């Protein structure tokens, strides 16, 4: 896709939005930190210095160590890998299901549309967190299952947004012209519909990532998510809570990291929405 005016306009507006740019910068740094964690982290996430036990921040261990003498900074860096991975992969799963569902429902219209959207309505009304817990209990606490389960929950809103967009597009001249020329359904989706709804998809995907990360943190906090010795930020916060009375730093640093990340994602997502859809940014 060429850099048409919508995208360059949006990019211009985005770069003018300081909060969004700051959020974006923090995200880029975090992603770099997560990818290069094995080189950046001063220690291994499982290395224990048993002589130390829980020690407050010092020059050797910048953020201190946990009860087992493991370097907290290293554990936060490695935790970033899991937390961000869950955020991106589960959002990706939600994206694939939601976009295909929405495009098919919106493009097909009629009975198929009403049945598909009725299914979405019904699923909306169910307590999905409970089903995720159920799946984790029944099939064991498996990382890939976690991705799938969270993604399978978060696609509903995406399906609704995409369907609305497709319905708006489907009677426009260029789509009718393509149809008249006998373009197949697949290439209609790929060449004509998808590029025109990329904006809302990108916005909603950015705003889904923090929700997914919250969900993972919630499950890990209850002990139903990531299992030790692997750590996500959720499990670090859980460990921090257990010893917060004596060793406050074990709660504070993972908590700050998690919160700043969610802030960055939300600001960047809001900025992206305002940039791509200036109509809604008025209020």
């Amino acid at each position, binding site marked *: 896709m060429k850099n048409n005016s919508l995208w360059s306009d949006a990019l211009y507006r985005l770069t003018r939005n300081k909060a969004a740019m700051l959020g974006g910068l923090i995200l880029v740094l975090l992603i770099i930190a997560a990818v290069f964690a094995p080189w950046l982290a001063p220690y291994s996430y499982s290395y224990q210095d048993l002589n130390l036990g829980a020690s407050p921040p010092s020059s050797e261990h910048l953020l201190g160590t946990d009860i087992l003498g493991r370097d907290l900074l290293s554990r936060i860096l490695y935790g970033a890998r899991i937390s961000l991975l869950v955020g991106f992969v589960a959002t990706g799963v939600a994206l694939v299901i939601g976009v295909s569902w929405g495009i098919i429902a919106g493009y097909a219209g009629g009975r198929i549309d009403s049945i598909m959207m009725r299914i979405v309505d*019904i699923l*909306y*009304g*169910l*307590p999905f*967190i*409970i*089903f995720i*817990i*159920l*799946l*984790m*209990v*029944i*099939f064991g606490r498996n990382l890939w299952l976690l991705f799938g389960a969270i993604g399978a929950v978060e696609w509903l809103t995406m399906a609704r947004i995409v369907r609305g967009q497709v319905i708006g597009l489907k009677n426009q001249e260029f789509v009718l012209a393509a149809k008249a020329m006998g373009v197949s359904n697949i290439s209609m989706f790929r060449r004509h519909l998808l590029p025109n709804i990329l904006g809302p998809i990108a916005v909603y995907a950015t705003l889904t990532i*923090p929700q997914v990360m*919250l969900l993972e*943190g*919630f499950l890990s*906090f*209850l*002990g*139903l998510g990531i299992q030790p010795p692997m750590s996500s930020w*959720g499990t670090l*916060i*859980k460990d*921090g*809570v257990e010893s*917060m*009375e004596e060793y*406050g730093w074990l*709660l504070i640093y993972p*908590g700050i990291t*998690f*919160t700043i990340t*969610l*802030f960055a994602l*939300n600001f960047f997502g809001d900025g992206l929405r305002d940039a791509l859809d200036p109509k809604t940014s008025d*209020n």
Partner: protein
Amino acid sequence: MLSIFFKRIFLAIPVLFAVASITFFLIKLAPGGPFDADRAVSPQVLKNLNEAYNLDASNWEQYVDYMSGLLRGDLGPSFRFPGRSVSEMISTGLPITFELAFYAILIALFMGVFSGVLAALKRNTFLDFIPMAIAMIGICVPTFLMGPLLVLIFGINLEILPVSGWGQLPGDKILPSLTLGFAYAAYIARLSRGGMLEVLNQDFIRTARAKGLTERMVVIKHAMQGGLIPVVSFLGPAIAGLLAGSFVVETIFQIPGLGRFYVEAAFNRDYTMILGTTIFFSAMIVFFNLLSDLAALWLNPRSRDAS
């Protein structure tokens, strides 16, 4: 209005039936029986246990048995706590969870609507920016972090509020309710600000002002009724979120409510308890969604007049 109500109820029944069936068979898929984790029991004892809980019957028989129990409101015995039934455990935990959720919703509505409406009226002043910044914090600091932080500050450092329990020490209900309510206050503040901004620009508000009504009357009688519809529609789905929040809050503050029972059942693989509470939660959420949809329909004059 009434026909919509019955239509929705009519739709909810098969949905709940499907939820109950799917959950039942999902749990049958789980590896291992409920008594595997106990100390090794002799085959004879295991056989007796399975017989007592009707686990040796075919899946289909157990299913029919369970569903007919469900119709009578009987959710079966708990596997983990012999002699106690699931219905009994739900009825001990439920009032506590309801009370917690009620206070949380009250706090959320009061704080959220007040700051959201204020922010909309004083748009682009610091009375808009500050509440909205706080709301952003409320959205970004998860419940499972907010709770411990409040405990750390008010319970451990300042020592002015109890750190755990429910109804045993004076003031021990404050921190759990605040923790649970705060996140929703943030969402409600954003929703009511958005809703109010949309309504305040409309013609009927200008008419009301032109009639010479006081600003207070304009806001309370005219603008809020329409501006708060998004908040009312949010309340139904919020109940589902409150439930999940209660898992966390009841775990942090050691409150013997339904949420904590559920988390413990998940840990102990107390399958009948998980099954029963899942069905119960689903029924409750479907019901509250119905209620909030109807309330939003009724508040919106367009849809009210149409039916």
